[in-house]
């Protein structure tokens, strides 16, 4: 299928943007193709989880099987030692705009989206795009810009995630059956439960207390929702997390006290009233805390003593300085230390081998698939670049099993570029995120803002219930970092107080300034109302000849909007916030630069992510939850992968990651995605042919 190869050199390079030292030519590598048992594209949590699971499960087969695995990573090899990791922390501290990707500079050849690039495309009267917003890596076709980013560096986006690890609720798996919305999953909560447990224990390391999870839709009993079938590990099925909960912040406790007994009442369609008793719930998170019996926390990469417990650095997004927060480097590091890619030494037992190659951009999935037919993947072609003025080198590797784990958007562009696995026409479609509405206020009391992890609690009340048949569910995240997100505080607070923009004279300085800051900053708080987005085929990632990067890879071209179903929850979230703020004694509307207790929430119409609904303007932010571009399902006509994330079209290809999720629910997606990846890993381990890659029984060459 060489006609599918992306041609980077020669005549086609006219459409290519050549930047920096890139010469545009590609050198083919010499020699034959290397063969592995498994080739994984993408060194993030999805790829690392599949690799670790396959290795551990295949070793328990009889006879044991020790696969040789290659992980191809597009970005640079991020710090694998503590001293080098510190340079990323410095880079964050020195960055002017401390956005999620600020510690992780992209390479010229592996560009990445950045939230600073978000701008709004110009739409025509007829709803088509007149001028796309293409100033960043994404080509935004609108009508709304897609508001999330990801990192292209070894370790992937978990380098700058927050670490929230909520399971989906049982009804999230059966949205169509239960509420006539979206689609059902091919698996249920009960089927996924054992994999959730393994994701919490064996990959991420989650801190939480079962008894403090007050979710709707679980019959009122968290113990039952978490009840485990693994009675060997959890006697009587009484589940506990590997680590105790991260203490709730002083702010959480303050809000819990003030809002005790509050019941939010919201008006639905046809005058129907819905009530939501407010209960503040400590959030499970991939952040180290006190271990429960049988668990050993995983510390920093290359320095295990560090990061054994969260120290309250308050910078989980974008970088945890001590690595108390999980990131995928931890799993990758374990793999390369335990399973180096070399022949066993004298006296060593045979074991699996893992090779990680960074700066290797997968550019094509080679395959034999004809339109509407099944085929086989015959290799992955990649470009190894050095950004030193020399051209990238092209190579193709072969394997028995191929895994794409490059993040939902990159999985989609790679498949579309390769014309692979897309008989259903669903590749790239149903792109989802949690559009996030912020509300913020100044409390009457010092609640100790700017301390601790980004969030330690939430209000789960709106996550499930009959309202989901008319409008989307939402999760409520309480933020511990004051107005950092909505108002760029504390910076803008200092600008407001010092003042003098027009006059050139400082209004406040010295002791008065210091005192006033102490009265304002710790009283700031914000809430994020994270709306479940429903799958829509028109929200999609596509590719276009006109938009390629310096290596000649297709840049993601994104069409994105919020459905009526999602929009209908914007006024609900706003109203719920109003009732909560009222109870907190800060119902009065106030605006900067005035500072007194009150509700500072405002959404300006000129924001790139402004959305109007019922005549009211809101803005939504991206949550970084990039989901849904290769949905799973039983029917090959309407889904890209099956319940094991195996391609319907190309049975030796697994497409893993949040892209497989048919619906999003209100949980941050990574825990669920990790559970799915473990399930996939088990499946691959059970099916791996019995020979090993080092001594292939048959020559598998395309």
């Amino acid at each position, binding site marked *: 299928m060489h006609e599918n190869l992306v041609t980077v050199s020669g005549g086609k390079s006219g459409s290519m943007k050549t930047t920096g030292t890139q010469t545009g030519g590609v050198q083919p590598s010499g020699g034959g193709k290397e063969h592995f048992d498994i080739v994984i594209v993408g060194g993030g949590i999805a790829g690392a989880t599949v690799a670790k699971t396959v290795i551990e499960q295949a070793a328990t087969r009889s006879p044991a099987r020790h696969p040789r695995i290659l992980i191809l990573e597009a970005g640079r090899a991020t710090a694998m030692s503590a001293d080098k990791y510190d340079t990323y922390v410095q880079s964050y*501290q020195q960055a002017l705009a401390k956005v999620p990707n600020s510690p992780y500079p992209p390479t010229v050849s592996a560009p990445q989206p950045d939230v600073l690039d978000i701008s709004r495309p110009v739409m025509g009267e007829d709803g088509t795009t007149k001028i796309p917003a293409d100033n960043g890596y994404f080509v935004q076709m609108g009508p709304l810009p897609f508001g999330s980013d990801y990192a292209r560096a070894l370790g992937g986006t978990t380098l700058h995630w927050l670490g929230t690890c909520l399971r989906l609720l049982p009804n999230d798996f059966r949205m169509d059956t239960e509420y006539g919305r979206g689609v059902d999953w091919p698996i249920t909560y009960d089927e996924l439960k054992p994999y959730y447990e393994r994701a919490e224990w064996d990959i991420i390391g989650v801190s939480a207390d079962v008894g403090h999870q007050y979710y709707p839709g679980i019959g009122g009993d968290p113990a039952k929702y978490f009840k485990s079938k693994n009675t060997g590990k959890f006697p009587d099925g009484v589940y506990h997390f590997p680590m105790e909960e991260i203490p709730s912040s002083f702010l959480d406790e303050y809000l819990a006290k003030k809002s005790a007994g509050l019941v939010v009442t919201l008006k639905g369609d046809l005058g129907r009233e819905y009530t939501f008793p407010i209960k503040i719930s400590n959030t499970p998170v991939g952040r180290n805390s006190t271990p429960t019996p049988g668990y050993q926390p995983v510390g920093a990469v290359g320095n295990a003593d560090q990061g054994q*417990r969260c120290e309250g650095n308050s910078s989980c997004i974008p970088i945890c300085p001590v690595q108390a927060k999980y990131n995928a480097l931890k799993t990758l590091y374990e793999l390369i230390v335990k399973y180096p890619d070399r022949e066993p030494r004298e006296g060593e037992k045979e074991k699996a081998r893992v090779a990680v190659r960074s700066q290797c951009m997968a550019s094509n999935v080679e395959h034999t698939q004809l339109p509407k037919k099944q085929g086989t993947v015959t290799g992955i072609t990649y470009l190894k670049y050095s950004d030193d003025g020399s051209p990238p080198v092209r190579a193709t590797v072969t394997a028995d099993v191929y895994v794409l784990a490059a993040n939902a958007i990159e999985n989609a562009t790679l498949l579309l570029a390769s014309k692979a696995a897309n008989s259903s026409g669903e590749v790239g479609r149903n792109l989802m995120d949690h559009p996030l509405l912020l509300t913020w206020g100044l409390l009457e009391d010092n609640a100790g*803002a700017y301390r601790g992890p980004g969030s330690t609690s939430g209000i789960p009340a709106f996550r499930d219930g009959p309202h989901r048949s008319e409008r989307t569910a939402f999760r409520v995240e309480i933020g511990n970092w*004051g107005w950092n997100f909505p108002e760029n505080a504390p910076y803008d607070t200092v600008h407001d107080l010092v003042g003098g923009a027009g006059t050139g004279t400082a209004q406040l300085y010295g002791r008065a300034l210091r005192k006033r800051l102490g009265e304002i900053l710790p009283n700031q708080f914000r809430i994020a109302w994270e709306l479940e987005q429903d799958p829509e085929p028109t929200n999609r990632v596509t590719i276009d000849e006109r938009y390629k990067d310096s290596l000649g890879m297709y840049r993601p071209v994104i069409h994105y909007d919020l459905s009526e179903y999602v929009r209908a929850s914007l006024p609900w979230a706003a109203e719920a916030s109003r009732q909560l703020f009222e109870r907190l004694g800060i119902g009065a509307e106030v605006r900067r630069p005035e500072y007194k207790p009150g509700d500072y929430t405002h959404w300006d119409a000129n924001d790139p992510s402004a959305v109007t609904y019922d005549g009211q303007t809101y803005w939504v932010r991206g949550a970084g939850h990039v989901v849904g571009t290769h949905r799973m399902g039983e029917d090959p006509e309407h889904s890209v992968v099956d319940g094991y994330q195996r391609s319907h079209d190309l049975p030796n290809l697994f497409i893993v990651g949040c892209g497989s999720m048919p619906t999003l629910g209100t949980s941050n997606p990574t825990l669920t995605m990790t559970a799915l990846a473990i399930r996939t890993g088990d499946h691959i381990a059970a099916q791996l042919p019995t020979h090993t890659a080092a001594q292939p029984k048959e020559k598998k060459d395309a």
Partner: protein
Amino acid sequence: MTTTELSNRSDPIVVFTDLSVELTGYDRVELAGTGLIEQHYDTLLRLIGEREAGHLLQAAAEALDADRKNHNGEALRTRVIESKLYGPVIISLIKLWYLGSWYPLPGSYADVNGSTAGDVEHVVSAQAYREGLVWSAAGAHPMGAKAPGWGSWAEAPALPSA
């Protein structure tokens, strides 16, 4: 700094320190504790020019002297902070101490005094960010540094006495 240096009120860095104390509301020991007095002094000279910095510190020294005699901050306020010439620099200097970033002088200032290449918004150094006074004024710690320790965020907040 030694005691002799401290007592030498005409030494520009001493003037700079005294001025910074008045502008930030943090005393000499607290400012010295940031380890940034010299760095910020150098930054000021570099970003507004040595001649302008010399004039500013001269004016500040005289005003501070007057205020010491009169036991108030009037001279500093009227002659430096409210001065057309020095006022904008004072604003940038306060923010430098509080936020660790340099914020450029307004165009109207540059029209008269010119501007240096470095006079654009930037984080002066990672240390300047970490030692930004805003964090302690908030009773917190810089995001991503000086972690206050496990569970500290659950405890009742306390502001260091101003």
